[in-house]
Each structure stands twice: as C-alpha cells, then as structure tokens.
C-alpha cells in the first residue's frame, strides 16, 4: 500500500516538498510521487491564504506575487477551518491509513462545529436546516448571499 514503504530509504532523506516513487515501475503508466505521511502543515488561516494546507505543495506563479491579503471578517475563521477539513479530506482519500491525519481531521471537525455554531448564532443560518433555529424563515432569505460584495449582504 502507498505511500511507498522502502525500509532502505530513510524518509528524512526525502524533503517535505518531495514524495516517494517506486524504485522500479511498469512502463506506459503515469507516475506522480506519493505525498509522504507527516508532511509539514500551515495553521488554518495561512492554509486558506495559501490555497493549501501543505507547504510542500505550495507552488506559486511568478506573476503578480503581491503580498497575500490578510483575510478578515466573521466568516474567515469558519472558512479557514472548513478549508483545512476539505484539504485533509482529499489527502485522506488517497491516504486512508494515515491515522495521524485522521485524528487531525477529527480535531479540526470539532473546532469547525464550534465556529459554525458561533457564526450562525451571530449572523444567521448558513444552511436551510439551520434555519430551524431562527425566529422565522426570513433568516434564510436575508440578503447575505455570498456573491454579494459585503459579507452578510449588501447593506
């Protein structure tokens, strides 16, 4: 099972931005190095800003490398936590035996639950079903649609 386990290879010899490859591989099939377990990670806000949880996969384009914008507003923390869950979820899809990553997923899921409850209590429901906790259905219909410029709606 991947990632490749080669007892003769010291994992530390392979840097964080590198992955494992089989020593010998059949022809005529594409190969991408497997991301190693225990890869370095960003904190959630940095992960969201960089578009990946993993520094080893952060490969920016040279043009327009303006300073990364600081994300703010009441949604930013929830978005960051959900981003980490999404990113870890994709990682776990191809690394389902990585127990450490799954434990991390569980920890972030608990944080996300808290952040979602706090956001919805202050700003209204994010889903139809959460609208059951609101005073009326208008909480779902409020003009906080996310494509509006202002978070929480154009006022």
């Amino acid at each position, binding site marked *: 099972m991947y990632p490749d386990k080669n007892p003769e290879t010291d994992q530390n010899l392979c840097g964080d931005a590198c992955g494992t490859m089989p020593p010998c591989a059949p022809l005529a*099939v594409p*190969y991408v190095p497997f991301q190693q377990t225990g890869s370095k990670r960003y904190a959630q806000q940095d992960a969201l800003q960089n578009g990946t949880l993993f520094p080893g996969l952060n490969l920016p384009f040279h043009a327009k490398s303006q300073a*990364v914008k600081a994300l703010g507003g009441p*949604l930013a923390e929830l978005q960051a936590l*959900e981003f980490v869950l999404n990113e870890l979820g994709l990682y776990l899809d191809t690394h389902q035996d990585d127990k450490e990553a799954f434990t991390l997923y569980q920890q972030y899921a608990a944080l996300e639950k808290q952040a979602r409850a706090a956001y919805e209590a202050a700003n209204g429901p994010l889903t139809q079903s959460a609208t059951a906790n609101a005073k009326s259905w208008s909480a779902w219909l409020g003009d906080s649609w996310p494509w509006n410029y202002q978070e929480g709606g154009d006022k």
Partner: protein
Amino acid sequence: MFFYEKKLQYPVKIANCNPKLASYIISQYGGPDGELGASLRYLSQRYAMPYPELKGLLTDIGTEELGHLEMIGAIVHQLTRNLSEDQIREGGFAPYFVDHTTGVYPTAASGSPWNAAGIGVKGDVICDLTEDMAAEPKARVTYDNILRLSDDPDVSDVIRFLREREIVHFQRFGEAVRLAKEKMDQKNVYFTNPAFDKSR
C-alpha cells in the same frame, strides 16, 4: 444529494468594477477548462469508477469544483456591478453585454457557450484519471494567464487561491492513478478495464 451552504470557500471582495477583466475571467465559469466542466467531469466519472476510495476522491474534488464555480460567478458579478454606459462600451465587454446584460452565463472568453466536448468521461479507470491529471494543469494555466492579465489585486488574490487548488488536485489524481494501478493486473494494467470487465 447536495445541500447548499450560504458562503464561499474563499472570500471574494472586489472593490472596483472592471468589465474587461470580467470578460476574461468568465472563461473559468463556462470555458473549456473552467470550473463547470471540472465539476461535471469528476462527478460524472464517479459512476464507472470501481474503487471506493476513488469514488470518494472524485466526489470530494467534484464538489469542491462546484464551490469554485460559485467563486468565479461571484468575481464576474462583482466586476460588473453598477456599470455606467461608458463602462459597458469599454474594453470589449459590449458583445457579452448585448447577449447577457450583466447576468453570469457559462461561456468561454472567446465566445463559445459551455460545451461538454471540453470534458471527458471514458468509462475506463486509467483513461479517466489521466484525463483528470491533464484537466487540472489546463485550468492552472488558465489561471496563470488570468494572473498575467489581471491589474486588480482583489481579483488576483482569489485567482491565486484557485490556481493553487489545481496543483493540489493534480497531486491527488496522480496518487489516485497509483492506487488504482495497485489493484489492477500488475503485469499489464491494460489487460482489462475494471470499470467494465467486472468478472475478470
């Protein structure tokens, strides 16, 4: 099934309108390598995929792409808010305007409406995953090109995020090919197509 979440994956807050830039960025809504095609490609490939973890990966990336589609729609919408008559005529936006006003319509920047010919669902494990490995860099290059053309830091910031997601997805699809290959004929992965030849 799907439920809607009333928020974006990454914030889109564009201060200034810029119809010219919108007329390029619309390509990632409905162009050949855009987010609509990406989501439909992965979500449609799931049915023939025989391996549970790769059904999961196609589901999870396909769902994320729907979130990216919404972000691109938000960018185009915000770049075309409250346009003056002069702004409508500026920068080549008029042809789009005459057909769609400032509605968000799935079309390529070059004018062709969204077309399923830009995506592949072949019903073959290696073929579909290789298609996906090619699709992610094509979207990434489109974002590279938008970054070259963008003169608005608010827009570039979001495009930079979306571009990086393409790189992560490429990595996962590459890993997916290797996971699939492990379950296939070790001497010749092309001996059968496990998406179709169930009994072999």
